[in-house]
């Protein structure tokens, strides 16, 4: 099912309510399902159900999914080092958007960002919406190696690389926290509708937190929110 393409909390709630409802209703035939910014996709077992049947069920039950209930989520405070070499592309962003680096950074830190979904790589958080002054098209040529924890801007999207990987997004900072931990279940701390607020740290704080993360002794600060 597809909704209009927009970064919208209300629409995401509708999509997640739809997902919750149909995941339960079709539990027997669904292999798995995922939500993205504006879609809910069902992967189902063709030996158990036909496309037409699924489509009829989606049409007849669509309005039954409850979307008005408040959901409990978390607002996480995520440390980020914005200076070089943890960031590379602030000068480009400032130049292209005709803003000062310092004011662009203040704007970035002043906002909190909603988790829309996780994709691309295990634990890659897709965040938004991003203020217009921070939009920056993806790089024409991707970099071969983006560091684990790198925070990137790809057009109007904001994301965090959970592992070292090639990537075409503009890197504006890096967080020492663990985005994906297969020893935990679920392996990712955040879920759709959670929010992330970044706070700036310097290189020495980055090293300290990295060490705590390595020892398994670091805990993210969070507060409960209702969305």
């Amino acid at each position, binding site marked *: 099912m597809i909704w209009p393409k927009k970064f919208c909390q209300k629409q995401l709630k509708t999509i997640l309510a739809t997902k919750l409802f149909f995941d339960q209703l079709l539990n027997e035939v669904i292999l798995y399902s995922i939500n993205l910014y504006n879609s809910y996709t069902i992967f189902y077992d063709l030996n158990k159900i036909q496309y037409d049947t699924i489509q009829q069920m989606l049409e007849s039950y669509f309005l039954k999914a409850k979307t008005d209930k408040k959901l409990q989520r978390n607002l996480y405070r995520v440390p980020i080092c914005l200076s070089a070499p943890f960031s590379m592309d602030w000068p480009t962003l400032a130049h292209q958007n005709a803003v000062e680096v310092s004011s662009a950074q203040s704007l970035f830190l002043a906002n909190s960002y909603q988790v829309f979904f996780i994709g691309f*790589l*295990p634990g890659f958080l897709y965040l938004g919406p991003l203020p217009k002054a921070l939009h920056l098209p993806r790089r024409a040529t991707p970099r071969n190696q983006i560091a684990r924890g790198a925070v990137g801007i790809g057009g109007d999207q904001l994301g965090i690389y959970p592992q070292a990987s090639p990537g075409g997004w503009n890197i504006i900072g890096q967080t020492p926290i663990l985005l994906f931990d297969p020893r935990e279940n679920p392996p*990712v701390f955040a879920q759709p509708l959670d929010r992330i607020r970044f706070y700036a740290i310097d290189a020495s704080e980055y090293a300290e937190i990295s060490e705590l993360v390595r020892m398994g002794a670091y805990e993210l600060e969070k507060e409960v929110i209702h969305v």
Partner: protein
Amino acid sequence: MSEITVLSAGLYTTIQDLGRLGYAAYGVPLSGSLDQRSAQLANALVGNANTAAVMEITLLGPKLKFAHNIEIAIVGAPIQPQLNGTTIPMSKMIKVTERDILSFGSMPYGCRSYLAVSGGFDVSVILGSRSFYKPVTPFNVLRKGQTLSCGTQTSLSEEKVVDDLPHSHFNNREILVKAGPEFEMLSASAQVFQSEFTVASQSSRMAYVFKETIQHNLPSIATSPVAPGTVQLTPSGQLIVLMRDAQVTGGYPRVLQLPEESIDQMAQKRPGDKIRFQLQ
């Protein structure tokens, strides 16, 4: 509990099962045996359930030493298996005994072969699966010197044999496909179906790519779900057939979709093989 020591690892040898269902929402790929058909036959021969983990061998086989008596079966691309230097048949249950050494010869065609052991390979279950995939599992491939455990041995009353897979499973050039969600956007569909594509050497468990490109003017799409078998078309005209270790979302138009049987056949293509896509 039976043990197997990896004397040499081969080119790209992994442990795989049906895959890691239910973690796509965390960005975790499905993984699992690329050629599920071969893997399932191998499991059946040693009396395993289809959920048992098998060893996926790519082009160049490993060398393995068994510490206990156990039943094994090898199914998939022909790879001249030998037990203590003596050739043994494929697609047949074989009893191996303590200190036996299994090695492999060359693979004249196809790309992947599967070794099943009675009880299955008992590597750690992480997020619901034994399939190797870094960073979910600590390693991508088997390493020399590593020791693998197998599940409890079941004693089979009779020797089992299955028919060899048809030659077409490995050498079929026509890959049957269905239209993908963005197929209608594709005005250059004739090129997709009339051209021959050569498997490029960068092809992997994540994706198959080809030397040839096609001309088109399709825009990128909003980030959308992709699955094993999804064929994406990049702005530079490259077709990408996503395989089982592929990412779960993508922003390129999804022009075609391979059904399961076609994914199995694609998994048997090696760099240099030529294929055509045929609309089902």
